[in-house]
């Protein structure tokens, strides 16, 4: 293991400077997707299926095309026919055919809100009017929304091309079970049968939305020579480029994607919805085309996180050592095969040492919008079940719930569910920090209860490209290909300034477009500070080396006779001994010493480590109304090293708040007709400021030895534990064990008054 960097005295790492893009954002100058306009731009609009499942018999666009001001109309037939090809799109694997058919339906509409046709016109009003003139003939088909219903014999099958993956022998009939993932070891049934204490339960969750406040929008301009520009916000403009190019079957380099500021993503903006459609409309009209979703469209047509049905059994010996775990669950895929079940399997029970395990996850297709990544995708659902069951087990054994977790907590070298050994993880440290925190022992008031839950997320590394260049005056620009979704420009500037030992303000970080920097994976998987940060450090180190080399040549001394000292090069020998050359002095004359000073680091970052968190929640439950108030909340997390602690805390607080919303009130509500009944912020109830207390973020730092500054991903972990932490706190306050989310007042009331 490397010497821990953290022993060093850092100049910038761990400080809290103001982000470089801050002033633009507090003054309203920052340009987000819906803010962008191109000269001569047309306004697009999308016609969506009113039916949850229907065959599209015909689409007549003639009347719409004839409306004055309408310049183009597109349907699924305007997209090229593609061969099946599974692509990695940042948050998981998707078939490009599915992505295409989700952008514009072909043959069948698979959910209410599925895009069926699109128009571009000279005003938004004309575009909307034109939608009403498109005649779509549907044959309504039986639909299915529920997980078990979708797997039942005779259920309407969404795709006749889907045969369950991961079962042997391969099925000979198509079904809605898209994929089955099973991992495990030992003798689960035997161990459960001989366990001193067991618990079991069925847990259910509804789909929830990422809830970013910026709706999807883009402007596309596709010229007759095949070259195109797209302006959009996303978690990865390179993913936008590769997916759009693949859907349209055109060369990637013909598309230049300019990233606009992104108004939240949480995983939901790692894919594309609008871009290929805007491209087709632009090609047809010869003009730039803007497409933007309303909030209602965002709810009806973009990715929710899957709902779930989860069966859990846990067994322990009399001392509380876990001996067996059996977790079997179904996740909604929605209309197209999604990815969360595999992650759910990996994220269910790996935080505990258990000899006998079975974890089985199944992706289930149904007539809902296609599930998309949402912050630690696939983990919170299964964690809710497992950590609720752990709480129940602690009660049964009469063991403090934190002690039960400590007794079983996985540490470095222990096996994960896959069998791989954990690296330098910090679960035990988080549990110990939670136990030592004053919150854990603070007194509680009437009707109050305290819950705790632990959880983790694997995080990621992957490809990033960074260009560090030195201006003639010695100031530094860091250009990355990673969209900044929550302060990463500040973190990159901090890391580069740390390497170069220069003031933070001497370094400016920007997000470059796809034509200006090399390929970078999405800002997702909690990878950016780790992987793009690693590239930033590597490129800054190379710039430092170049500056030293140039200075040595300017002085006419061998390269080993100079040294980087306090942001400048010092000469150690010869006539110039004792002199220094600043970056400005070197870069200002670099045209005469070999050319401009810049370095690109393009790497595929390895050595990422998962993050672990332990959350403590106090609730107060009104026994007469079932209303739950979050009284106090503390989120402990191993963050590796906090580069900019404010934004690390912000990730933890924001993730916890989303988890609390998921626990208490957020849910997709469907009518009997298969249509979404709460497609707006009024009835899709995300927490408002008055719903929450301060959320104390406690950063435990167990550095990652594989990163130059010890970084571990932090963004996703904090949404994992809250669901069970809240449920366990409600149980502590009331004695009622709620196993169905959301734990809205009517559900809590029903649990407290079982006789009605």
């Amino acid at each position, binding site marked *: 293991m490397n010497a821990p960097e953290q022993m060093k005295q850092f100049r910038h790492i761990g400080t809290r400077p103001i982000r470089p893009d801050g002033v633009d954002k507090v003054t309203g100058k920052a340009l987000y997707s819906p803010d962008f306009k191109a000269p001569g731009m047309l306004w697009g609009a999308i016609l969506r299926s009113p039916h949850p499942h229907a065959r599209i018999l015909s689409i007549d666009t003639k009347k719409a095309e004839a409306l004055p001001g309408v310049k183009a109309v597109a349907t699924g037939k305007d997209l090229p026919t593609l061969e099946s*090809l*599974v*692509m*990695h*799109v*940042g*948050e*998981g*694997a998707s078939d490009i055919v599915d992505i295409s058919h989700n952008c514009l339906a072909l043959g069948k509409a698979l959910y209410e809100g599925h895009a069926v046709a699109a128009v571009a016109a000279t005003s938004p009003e004309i575009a909307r009017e034109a939608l009403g003139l498109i005649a779509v003939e549907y044959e309504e088909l039986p639909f299915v929304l529920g997980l078990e219903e979708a797997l039942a014999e005779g259920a309407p099958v969404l795709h006749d091309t889907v045969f369950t*993956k*991961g*079962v*042997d022998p391969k099925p000979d009939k198509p079904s809605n079970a898209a*994929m*089955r*993932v*099973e*991992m495990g070891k030992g003798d689960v049934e035997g161990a459960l049968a001989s366990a001193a204490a067991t618990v079991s339960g069925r847990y259910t969750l509804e789909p929830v939305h*990422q809830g970013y406040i910026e709706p999807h929008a883009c402007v596309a301009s596709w010229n007759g020579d095949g070259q195109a520009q797209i302006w959009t916000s996303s978690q990865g403009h390179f993913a936008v480029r590769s997916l759009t190019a693949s859907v349209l079957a055109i060369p990637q380099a013909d598309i230049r994607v300019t990233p606009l500021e992104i108004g939240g*993503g*949480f*995983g*939901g903006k*790692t894919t594309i919805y609008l871009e290929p459609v805007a491209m087709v409309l632009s090609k047809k009209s010869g003009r730039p085309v803007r497409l933007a979703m309303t909030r209602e469209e965002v709810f009806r047509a973009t990715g929710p996180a899957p709902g779930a049905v989860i069966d859990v059994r846990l067994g322990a010996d009399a001392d509380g050592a876990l001996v067996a775990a059996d977790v079997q669950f179904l996740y909604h895929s929605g209309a197209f095969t999604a*990815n969360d079940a*595999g*992650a759910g*399997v*990996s*994220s269910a029970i790996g935080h505990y040492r258990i000899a006998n395990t079975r974890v089985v996850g199944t992706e289930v297709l149904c007539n809902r919008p296609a599930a998309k*990544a*949402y*912050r*630690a*995708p*696939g983990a919170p659902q299964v964690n809710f079940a497992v950590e609720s069951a752990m709480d129940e087990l602690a009660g049964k054994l009469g063991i403090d719930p934190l002690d039960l977790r400590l007794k079983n907590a996985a540490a470095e070298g222990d096996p994960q569910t*896959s*069998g*791989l*050994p954990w690296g330098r993880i910090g679960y035990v440290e988080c549990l110990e920090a939670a136990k030592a925190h004053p919150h854990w022992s603070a007194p509680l008031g009437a009707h109050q209860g305290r819950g705790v839950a632990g959880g983790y*997320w*694997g*995080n*990621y*590394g*992957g490809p990033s490209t960074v260009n560090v260049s030195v201006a003639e005056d010695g100031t530094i620009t860091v250009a990355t290909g990673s969209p900044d979704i929550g302060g990463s420009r500040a973190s990159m500037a901090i890391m580069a300034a740390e390497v170069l030992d220069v003031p933070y303000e001497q370094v400016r970080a920007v997000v470059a477009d796809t034509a200006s920097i090399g390929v970078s994976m999405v800002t*997702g*998987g*909690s*990878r950016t500070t780790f992987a793009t940060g690693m590239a930033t450090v590597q490129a800054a180190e190379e710039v430092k080396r170049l500056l030293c080399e140039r200075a040595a040549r300017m002085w006419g001394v061998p390269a080993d006779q100079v040294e980087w000292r306090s942001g400048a090069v010092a000469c150690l020998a010869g006539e110039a001994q004792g002199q220094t050359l600043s970056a400005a002095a070197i870069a200002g004359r670099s045209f005469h010493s070999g050319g401009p000073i810049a370095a690109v680091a393009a790497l*595929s970052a*390895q050595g990422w480590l998962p993050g672990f968190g332990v959350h403590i929640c106090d609730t107060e439950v009104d026994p007469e109304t079932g209303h739950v108030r979050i009284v106090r909340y503390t989120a402990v997390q191993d963050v590796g090293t906090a580069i900019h602690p404010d934004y690390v805390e912000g990730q933890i607080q924001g993730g916890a708040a989303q988890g609390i919303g998921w626990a208490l009130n957020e849910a997709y509500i469907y009518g009997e007709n298969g249509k979404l009944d709460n497609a707006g912020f009024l009835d899709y109830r995300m927490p408002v400021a008055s719903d929450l207390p301060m959320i104390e973020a406690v950063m435990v730092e167990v550095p990652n030895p594989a990163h130059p500054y010890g970084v571990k*991903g932090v963004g*996703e972990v904090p949404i994992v534990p809250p669901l069970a932490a809240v449920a366990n706190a409600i149980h502590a306050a009331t004695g009622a064990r709620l196993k169905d989310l959301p734990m809205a007042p009517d559900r809590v009331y029903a649990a407290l008054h079982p006789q009605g």
Partner: protein
Amino acid sequence: MRIVVMAPFDKEFFGTGRLDLAPRNLFDLVGKLDALAPGFAAIAQPRVHFAVDGVLETDWTRPLAEAAEVIVLPRVGGG
């Protein structure tokens, strides 16, 4: 060399979770696995992670002469 294939790929492609192969590197392994189960190579990049002797390896050029075990497991992305 022991090749351990985890779910869902064991059943999806190979009908077994244990194989014995001698790949030069992970590119070579992908090729050998594709020969056993055509179609595997097409999904390897988007869906598969490899672990060499217990450590995830995304550099497929790394020589495997000294390695004892490669685990083929599902790639987990993030949001």
